[in-house]
């Protein structure tokens, strides 16, 4: 087994042992059960009910997955540095880039596992109330959540490399989560609308935030009509076309995965331990 996979396996083991992932999966499953139950009580059964519950889960995902991924990523390097284990690790015949990639792979697998478990338990419960006809959308949301998690982990690891300590890294990760997930709509999109209220500007603003790009992709897959998104929806469907829009949004999320990781790897390689 090479060094990257050895470190990845260790990171996966640590993440599972930490209990965070179990808490995430359990929270996700419980909320999904409540959503399904409410949906069933309100008479929303069948394909539509499955979709509505799924849409509720996506909102939950957009809230929880970035937080989980950013926090786990932020602890990856800063935690080793604080505990003093980084020097022992890097005194072995491994490069800083191998350590970083190994940790990223391990954490990604861990978060994907938690997402799969959360969606899996929730899906099983939802099937009690709805038919299996829309399982495709459901699986798509699982994949989108995984892609979002990968991008947020990458950002978390970037924070971890450059933050002075684990506490600072975790603090920065929470601030980042607040900005990207909670404040973005009010802040960046509001600012863009005030300065240049065009669909093009709104698309550009969405591409600058992986959580926003994921939200748009999810909405595009669930809604036939994007009027709900206002001028942004019109621009995405009429001017760009659904296919191009989806490709662009997905590319943006993948870029948000690759770029922070590349910057983190470069920075980590040049740091003193």
């Amino acid at each position, binding site marked *: 087994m090479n060094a990257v996979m050895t*470190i990845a396996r260790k990171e996966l083991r640590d993440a599972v*042992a930490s209990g965070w992932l179990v808490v995430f999966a359990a929270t996700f499953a419980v909320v999904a059960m409540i959503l399904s139950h409410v949906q069933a009580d309100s008479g929303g059964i069948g394909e539509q009910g499955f979709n509505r519950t799924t849409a509720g889960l996506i909102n939950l995902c957009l809230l929880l997955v970035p937080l989980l991924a950013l926090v786990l990523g932020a602890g990856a390097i800063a935690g080793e540095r604080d505990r003093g284990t980084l020097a022992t690790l*890097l005194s072995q015949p491994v490069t800083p880039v191998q350590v970083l990639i190994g940790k990223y792979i391990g954490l990604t697998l861990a978060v994907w596992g938690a997402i799969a478990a959360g969606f899996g338990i929730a899906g099983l419960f939802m099937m009690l109330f709805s038919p299996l006809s829309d399982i495709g959308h459901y699986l798509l949301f699982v994949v989108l959540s995984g892609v979002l998690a990968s991008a947020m982990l990458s950002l978390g690891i970037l924070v971890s490399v450059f933050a002075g300590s684990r506490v600072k890294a975790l603090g920065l990760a929470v601030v980042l989560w607040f900005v990207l997930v909670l404040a973005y709509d009010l802040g960046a999109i509001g600012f863009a609308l005030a300065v240049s209220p065009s669909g093009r500007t709104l698309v550009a603003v969405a591409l600058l935030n992986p959580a926003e790009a994921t939200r748009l992709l999810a909405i595009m897959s669930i809604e036939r009509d994007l009027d709900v998104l206002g001028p942004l929806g019109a621009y995405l469907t009429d001017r760009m076309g659904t296919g191009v829009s989806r490709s662009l949004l997905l590319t943006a999320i993948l870029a948000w995965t690759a770029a922070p990781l590349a910057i983190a790897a470069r920075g980590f390689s040049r740091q003193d331990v």
Partner: protein
Amino acid sequence: MLTATNVTKRYGKTTVLDGASLSIAPGSVTAVIGANGAGKSTLIKSVIGLIRFEGSITINGADVAKEPKRAREMVGYVPQDPAFHSDLTVGETARFYATLRRLPAERAHAAVETAGLAGHVGKKAGALSGGMRQRLALAIAQLSDPPVLVLDEPAAGLDVSARLDLRRLVSEQRAAGKAILLSTHWLEDVPYVADHALVLDQGKTVYSGPATGLAASGAAGSKLFLRLNGHSPEAVTLLERMPMAGAIARTGDWVVVNCAATDKAHVVEALVAAGIGILDFRVEEASVDAAVMHLQSVRGGLS
């Protein structure tokens, strides 16, 4: 073979290591000596490639700055305060590092046994005492039987018995042909464990040469306080004839003898052989600061 040439480390305008050079052949030990902040750990971390530096360091031909991974394959490193993942057991820790070095699990098991930790294989690394962590670090450093060992303050925090064990281990590894670099602020250990010494003060080299030369210079001197059985005048007369004894003084019942750290036992032997009983004694070893000041004054006198 470990060679460091003109190694310098700066943080902004502050130079913490200024042109340190050393060369360690297989089967020899070099001790880096200095007070806290002298630059010992900076030099050691440079050798391991944990920090970037100016100058050149090669390990068996591998340039640490250009090929750090290849260089580290040939080095076993024990940090000043070894830290391990607290949730892993001793056995899991050794296996983890063995896997990183592409070694079989049996090697990890053997290293743990050799380090005397066989009875603690299932113990969490986070529950180990300082001495046990040190032993685990030594086990990990020797997993791949590397030709070079780098030990950062290995004696720090060890009791007398553990320090003697460490001396024995260093001696065994030297006999096995390893090139060993160790840092210490225990001056009295140096003549016993090292062939060469490099004394640093605020990043600058104040002595580089044979460890015996360091002792001979008087820098690594000891003060021996002896309470004798009513034979102080005879003892002083005897000691004054001994070339190894330096300044001699009498303070009440006590005779105070200055001598090299390695000559303490000879002084005591000579007194006992002359029939002078020793009721009590204590030893005051020279501090690193005092040694550095001594070396600087010698250098100043020569220049």
